[in-house]
C-alpha cells in the first residue's frame, strides 16, 4: 500500500518529463495517436544547427553561475547588517518586494535605467537585473543564519582566542555551509528559470534557454520546445540528485530577527 502510493507519486511527477521526452523524439504526433507516429532524433540533432541552443545553454549557465556566486557571497557578507538594522521591518519588506512583484513589472521599471547605463541587451545587464532578485533572496536566506545560536558560536570562538577573521573562516563558514550551498543552488535557479527579465533587459539580444524555448513555442515547434525544456530541467534535477537541496526555499519563514 505504502509502496504503491510511493510509486504512484513518482509516476505523477515523472510523467510530464516522459511526455517531454516523447515529444522531443517525435516526428509527427497527430491527434488521437497516444504515441508518436514515427520516432526520430532530429529535434536533438537539429538543436545544435538551429537557433544556437548550445550557445543559449552556455549563456544561461554563465549568467546563472555568475548570479549565484556574486549574490550568495555578497548576501552572506551583508546579511548580518540586515539583521541588525534598526529598520528591520521596513528592510524585510523591501527585500521581499522583488519577489512579490511580478518580474515583468520589475523588468519594465528597470529597463530604462539599464538602457541608460548601457547595460540593456548584454549578458552583464541581465545578470545584474536577476542579481537584484538573487541578492535579496540571499540576504533573506542568510538572515536565518544570524540567530542567537550562531552568535553564541562566534562569541565562543572569540573568547577561545579566534580573531574575527578566524571565527568566520573556522566557525561561521563551516556552520553555514549547508545554507551557502542551498543559497547557491537557489540563486542559480532564480536566474536559470527567469524569462521576464531576460526578455525585457536582454531586449531579445541575450538568448538564454528560456527565451529560446519560448521562440520555439512561437514558431510552433513543439519538438524543439520539448527538447529545450528538457535541457532546462537538467541542472535543477542534478542539483536535487546530489541532494544539495536540504531545505526548501522559503521566503519570510527564514527571517529571524
Amino acid at each position: 500500500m505504502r509502496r504503491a502510493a510511493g510509486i504512484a507519486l513518482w509516476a505523477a511527477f515523472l510523467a510530464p518529463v516522459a511526455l517531454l521526452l516523447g515529444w522531443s523524439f517525435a516526428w509527427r504526433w497527430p491527434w488521437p495517436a497516444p504515441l508518436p507516429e514515427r520516432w526520430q532524433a532530429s529535434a536533438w540533432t537539429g538543436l545544435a544547427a538551429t537557433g544556437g541552443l548550445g550557445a543559449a545553454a552556455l549563456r544561461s549557465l554563465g549568467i546563472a553561475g555568475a548570479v549565484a556566486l556574486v549574490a550568495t557571497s555578497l548576501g552572506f557578507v551583508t546579511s548580518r547588517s540586515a539583521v541588525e538594522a534598526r529598520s528591520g521591518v521596513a528592510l524585510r519588506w523591501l527585500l521581499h518586494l522583488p519577489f512579490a512583484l511580478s518580474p515583468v513589472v520589475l523588468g519594465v521599471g528597470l529597463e530604462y535605467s539599464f538602457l541608460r547605463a548601457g547595460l540593456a541587451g548584454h549578458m552583464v545587464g541581465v545578470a545584474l537585473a536577476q542579481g537584484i532578485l538573487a541578492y535579496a533572496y540571499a540576504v533573506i536566506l542568510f538572515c536565518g543564519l544570524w540567530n542567537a545560536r550562531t552568535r553564541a558560536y562566534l562569541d565562543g570562538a572569540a573568547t577561545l582566542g579566534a580573531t574575527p577573521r578566524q571565527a568566520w573562516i573556522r566557525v561561521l563558514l563551516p556552520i553555514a555551509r549547508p545554507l551557502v550551498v542551498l543559497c547557491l543552488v537557489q540563486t542559480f535557479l532564480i536566474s536559470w528559470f527567469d524569462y521576464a527579465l531576460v526578455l525585457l533587459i536582454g531586449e531579445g539580444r541575450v538568448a538564454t534557454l528560456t527565451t529560446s524555448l519560448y521562440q520555439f513555442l512561437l514558431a510552433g515547434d513543439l519538438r524543439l520546445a520539448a527538447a529545450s525544456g528538457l535541457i532546462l530541467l537538467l541542472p535543477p534535477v542534478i542539483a536535487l540528485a546530489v541532494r544539495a537541496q536540504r531545505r526548501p526555499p522559503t521566503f519570510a519563514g527564514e527571517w529571524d530577527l
Partner: protein
Amino acid sequence: MAAARLIRRPPRRARGVAIAAAILACATLGACTRTRPVNAPSPPLPASWAGIVAAARGQTVTIAMWRGDPAVNAYLQRVIAPALQRSRDIRLRFVPAQGEQIVSALMTEIEAHRRPSGYDIVWINGETFYQLREIHALFGPFTARLPNARFIDWRNPYISRDFQQPIAGYECPWGNAQLLMITDSRRVPRPPTDPASLAAWIHRHPGRFTFDTSFTGLSFLKSLMYAFAANPAQLQGPFDEARYLRLRDAVFAWIRSVRPDLWRHGATFPRSTAQLDQLFADGEVDFTMSFTDGEVDHRVATGAFPPTAEGFSLRSGMIQNSHYLGIVARSAHVAAAMVVINELISPWAQWRKLDPAVWGDGTVLDVGRLPPRWRARFAAAARRTHAPSRAALQAFARPEPSASLMIALSRDFRRDVLEH
C-alpha cells in the same frame, strides 16, 4: 493617431506645475529631454557603392525580426548568413522582435539616448513602418543606392506602397505574400470561400474554426472588411473614419454572429499563428491561416501538417502585402546594413526564398528585368503543390488599408470583441 502627437513640444506652463514630480523623475533619470531626429549616419557613409562595400567588411549586423517561422529562421541562418560571411565578410545576428516590439524597443532607445542603437536592420511593414517614421527611427532614403534595387518591381502597387504609404526610400521591399486560408481537404473537401458560407459552415461545425489575435488574425479581419465593402476602393487612400466604422461594425457583427460556434465558444482566441497551426495539426480546428502563401508545402514537408492540407483563398478577397527591411537611424553599421539588404534582394537570394522547400515567400523582383539566366531560373522554380499558384491567387488580392486603420482595428477588436 497617437504617433502624430509625438513630435509636439510640451506646454511650458505644465512644466511649472510639475516641479515636484519632475525633480523626482529628472534628477534620478534625466529622462525629460526630448529627442531631436538625427538622421545622419555615423560613421558617415562612403560616396560610392564600392566604398560602402569596403566599409561593411568585418562588421556584425543585428537584425530585429519576427522569429515565429522556422522556415524563415532556417533560410536566414543556413542560406543567407553563410553566403554573406563568405562573400562580404559580414556576420549576421538575429534578435527576435515583432513589429510593435520593434517600435517599443527603438522608442525606448531614443528615450534613453542610446547611441549607437542595438539594432541595425528591422524587418517591418505597415503600421510599424508608419510609427518608426513618426519617431524618426529609420535611416533613409537609401533604396536608390542599392545596386540590386533596379530589379525591384516598383510599378507593382503591392510593393511600392506599404499600407497605402509611399515607402519613399526608407525601407526596401524584401518579400511579397498573400494571406491564405488553410484546411485539410480530407476533413473539409469543399471549403467555404466567402464570409456568408464560412459563417454557415461554422454554424454547422461548432468549435472547428477560430482565428488568432496576432497580425495574421487581424489581416483576416481586414480581408473580411473588403468582403463587406461595396468596392475595394473604400479601403484605400487615407484613413476615413466614417467608412472604417461602418466596415468595422459589419465585421464585428459577423464575428458576434459566429462567435458561439467558434473554437471554445469564442471565449478565447489563439494568441499566435503558431498556436492556431498547432490546433489545426492536432485536429482541434479545421482551418488555419498563413501570411506566407507558400507555407503549406513547407509545413507538409516537415511533418507539421498532414499531407492532405490545402491552401485556398476567400473569393471575397484576401490581403496581399509586402514586407520590408529598414535601417535603424542610430545604427553604427549603416553601410553594412545596406550591403546586407542589397544581398537579400539579389536574384539569387530572392530565388532561393521562392522555393517552398526553403520558405515559399514571393519575390519583389520584376522577373522581366532580370538577366536571361535568372529569368530562366525563376521560370523553372519549384512549384508548390498544396496551394493555388500565385497567378491564381492574384485575382483575390486586396491591398493593405492604411496603417491608421490597422492601429484602430487592433485597438477596437481588443476592446469590443476580445474583452467581452
